[in-house]
């Protein structure tokens, strides 16, 4: 039997409220513990700007025609977005699993995709908050300019969504707190640092340049840098396609796992 339109409307409204509740809870969580969630990125990036930008950067000179400080700003902002979006979802979702309060949602009429949307929304919100803080700090050290604002916003949102999804998957499979630190420490951090945050990939000799092109984070940082400075190591279209492609894969995988109840149900 098909649902009456008003029933469908009511169901949609209730689901929207459920989504808002998860999002509110997630944002409230990282704001409540801001010394753990917002402050560390502010301190770390200030140090990056001070050491790599001011002290060492002054001696490096120009990179692709820009002051070194200006060149590294987009990468440092996006690095904060990546680590915070990932970290927010993996920590929050795994601790919900660990404390079993995820059952609050599982027993309620909250579809899996809605739960995923709520957690990803929380990750994007934290990425946005931390990205904003880091941009504010960058403005102290250098005169920020944005050549293509639409690209900046698009890459920022897509990257935050992608790494929130990745954090969700990590938490879904995790069975201990060790499991949620392995990927960030041993996979994500090396990929971010080798993704051209502090240098142009053109500086690398072969075969490292070719190998670096296999790092998806390189495309995100290059596209983000293009939004700020108007220069890039790779094609913007290809970069956006790669990000969207990864999002589709991780989204499909997450939804499939949620439908099966992997990591959540017996």
């Amino acid at each position, binding site marked *: 039997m098909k649902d009456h339109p008003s029933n469908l409307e009511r*169901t949609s*409204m*209730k*689901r929207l*409220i*459920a989504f*808002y*509740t*998860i999002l*509110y*809870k997630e944002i*409230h969580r990282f704001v*409540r513990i801001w010394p753990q969630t917002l402050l560390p990125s502010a301190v770390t990036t200030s140090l990056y700007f001070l050491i790599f930008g001011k002290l060492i950067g002054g001696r490096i000179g120009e990179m692709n025609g820009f002051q070194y400080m200006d060149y590294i700003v987009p990468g440092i902002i996006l690095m904060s977005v990546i680590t915070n979006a990932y970290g927010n979802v993996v920590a929050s979702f795994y*601790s*919900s699993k660990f*404390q*079993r*309060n995820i*059952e*609050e*949602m*599982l*027993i*309620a*009429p*909250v579809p899996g995709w809605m739960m995923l949307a709520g957690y990803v929304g929380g990750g994007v919100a934290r990425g946005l908050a931390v990205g904003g803080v880091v941009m504010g700090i960058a403005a102290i050290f250098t005169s920020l300019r944005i050549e293509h604002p639409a690209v900046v916003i698009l890459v920022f949102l897509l990257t935050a969504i992608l790494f929130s999804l990745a954090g969700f998957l990590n938490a879904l499979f995790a069975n201990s707190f060790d499991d949620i630190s392995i990927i960030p420490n041993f996979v994500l951090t090396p990929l971010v640092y080798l993704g051209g945050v502090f240098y142009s990939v053109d500086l690398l000799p072969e075969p490292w340049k070719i190998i670096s092109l296999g790092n998806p984070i390189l495309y995100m940082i290059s596209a983000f840098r293009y939004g700020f400075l108007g220069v890039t190591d790779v094609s913007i279209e290809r970069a956006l396609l790669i990000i969207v492609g990864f999002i589709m894969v991780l989204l499909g995988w997450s939804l499939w796992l949620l439908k099966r*109840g992997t990591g959540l*149900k*017996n």
Partner: protein
Amino acid sequence: MKALSINDLRKVYKNGFEALKGIHLDVEEGDFFALLGPNGAGKSTTIGIISSLVTKTSGKVTVFGHDLDSNPDAVKRSIGLVPQEVNFNQFEKACQIVANQAGYYGIPRKQAIKRAEECLDVLGLGDKRNETARQLSGGMKRRLMIARALAHSPRLLILDEPTAGVDIEIRRSMWDYLRKLNREGTTIILTTHYLEEAENLCRNIAIINQGIIVENNAMGNLLGKLNVASFILELRKPLEKLPKLTGYRLARIDDRTLSVDVPVELGIHGLFDVLTLQGIEVTSLRNASNRLEQFFMNLVESGRNERPSV
């Protein structure tokens, strides 16, 4: 109308353990129902399946006529669950925990907060609404779990050992509240290890053992099946040797304390007559265990004896 109907429900876990072997169970609307069984009998699996936390292997579950497979949302809206273990975010405030739960059921934030405050008030937690869960005592946490389960005004409340580790005063006040809730129309299913609790609160009972429902009856009928009652007798003077009482089974606990099994057909009145004739004066008398406990133990023991030897 049936609040819950379970037909041929089976659950086999990935490791091959068969937790439920095709159980059938009906709970009428408005009932106060006890689901009892020893540890590992299948109670929590049954509750997990009804509340969508465990995926069933086969069988059919309907809640107020809504099928769990075809209309899970309607089933979920009908049920409030108080789990066995404390499972809320320890760093969230009591009011937020209940309001968030209401939000998951589609209640707008303002209404959800109002509803949370009402639920906390009726459970005596009104003044704790702004305290984080970890600041609450064990009894308060238990009551908070009930408040959370009531956030969306469910028609069926399932309580999985709700008074475990709670002191007697709070337990009694929780019983009063659950009775009130049941009188107001909420169907309640209770699992507990305190059989006195089930005997006091519930009108109907099912006992599950090794994944099978071994008894499903009205509480009165069930207790009527008991043909022996056990008592503890405190004596005025120490006994030198056990008296001989035909038909009664006696055992000495210490010099002044006896346990006695009294067959229903002989009755306790006859016991006092015989003891008086032998010059034994009883100063006090109490049940060795409650009646349901005796019945429960009989069933569980018989289940064990039927197990094939390994």
